């Protein structure tokens, strides 16, 4: 087990009794390790002591008023309105009244058409002003795992969630996936059969993952149109 792995497990309070002995021995021998532990412990302590935001006065009352109104529920009001609308009633028309209603209807329809045209124009202008999508580069990851049942990739590109990036097997035992990535620096690992996290032996750069293995480092440059 690497020292970095021990440090992370120590901070998470997950060291076994044997690991604690190994850790204390390592601390006694390595000053930079002591500094790293102090740095992490200070961070964790600082985070746990961050001021809790004050709950505004009347917060609970506002929530309750919004969710459980004491006035009759909206549904009851709506039902009463519907009842009134559907209740049979008699209308009395004369010629002048009918003409006035017809004119009002025509005006309303005309105004509706004009407003619809305005909305349509506005939506065309708005859509032409949208920002262009960020450029992406297609990156192909490949790993050889002939005996594997499932291979996935986890990294900065998917929040280290392997279930989001499964690789497809090829006939010769390799597994591959092509990812559209924005330019930037990404660390990743492969996950074999849902359990074993491994680095990428083909990666140009590696970094310690803090859990006993190595992250592959992928430096995605601005797009040239090719798959790396």
């Amino acid at each position: 087990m690497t020292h970095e792995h021990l440090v992370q497990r120590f901070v998470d309070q997950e060291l076994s009794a044997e690991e604690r002995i190994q850790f204390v021995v390592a601390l006694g021998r390595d000053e930079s390790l002591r500094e790293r532990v102090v740095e992490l412990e200070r961070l964790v302590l600082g985070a746990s002591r961050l001021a809790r935001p004050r709950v505004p006065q009347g917060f609970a009352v506002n929530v309750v008023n919004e969710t459980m109104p004491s006035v009759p529920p909206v549904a009851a009001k709506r039902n009463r309105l519907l009842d009134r609308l559907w209740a049979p009633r008699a209308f009395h028309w004369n010629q002048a009244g009918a003409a006035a209603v017809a004119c009002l209807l025509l005006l309303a329809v005309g105004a509706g058409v004009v407003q619809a045209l305005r909305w349509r124009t506005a939506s065309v202008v708005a859509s032409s002003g949208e920002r262009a999508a960020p450029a992406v580069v297609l990156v192909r990851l490949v790993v050889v795992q002939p005996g594997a049942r499932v291979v996935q990739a986890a990294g900065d590109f998917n929040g280290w969630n392997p279930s989001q990036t499964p690789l497809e097997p090829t006939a010769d035992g390799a597994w591959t996936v092509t990812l559209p990535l924005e330019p930037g620096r990404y660390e990743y690992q492969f996950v074999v059969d849902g359990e074993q996290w491994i680095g990428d032996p083909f990666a140009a750069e590696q970094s310690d993952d803090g859990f006993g293995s190595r992250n592959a480092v992928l430096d995605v440059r601005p797009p040239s149109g090719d798959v790396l």
Partner: protein
Amino acid sequence: MIPGAAPDDASLVRASLAGDREAFAVLVSRHAQSVLSVTTRMLGTADAEDVAQETFVSAYKALAGFQFTAKFSTWLYRIAVNKCHDALRTRRGGMVSLDSEDGEELAWKALEDDAPRRDLDRIELAWELDRSIQALPPLYRESFVLKHVEGLGYDEMSEILGINRDTLKMRVYKARTLLCRSLAHLEGARR
């Protein structure tokens, strides 16, 4: 329930479902600070209160589906985190606010709350830490906040976020590494 003791969350949920406004008010009061803490760390103070309120409104609407075998706080955290995701998605261009005033306000609150133990180093660290947490990528930020600000274990976090422990550990590890890097200049200045 012990007579005279504060009712537990499950009893309050049942009473709320039966239309008891006071019971729901007690539930909200009991969990408001935890929810507000998560929304503040995830979104900054500008949106935190609105999103905290939306969390409770959504919780009330979904209350009938609450599984009494689960912890109410875990269920509520899950709603709060989802609300934060929605809020982050609707922000312009998906960029996260790095408004420096957010951290400043909390740091000064710490000063007011804890006057006898005023410690400039601590205030400075709190201010910088708050800013740095809010500058983390959202997925790392939520894992770090739940683990180290809210003090949850990986099992409960896994239940809240629907993500396995290994993935969460990796996210927390990445967050810690990024934060240490971000705060390194404070250490350098102290030496």
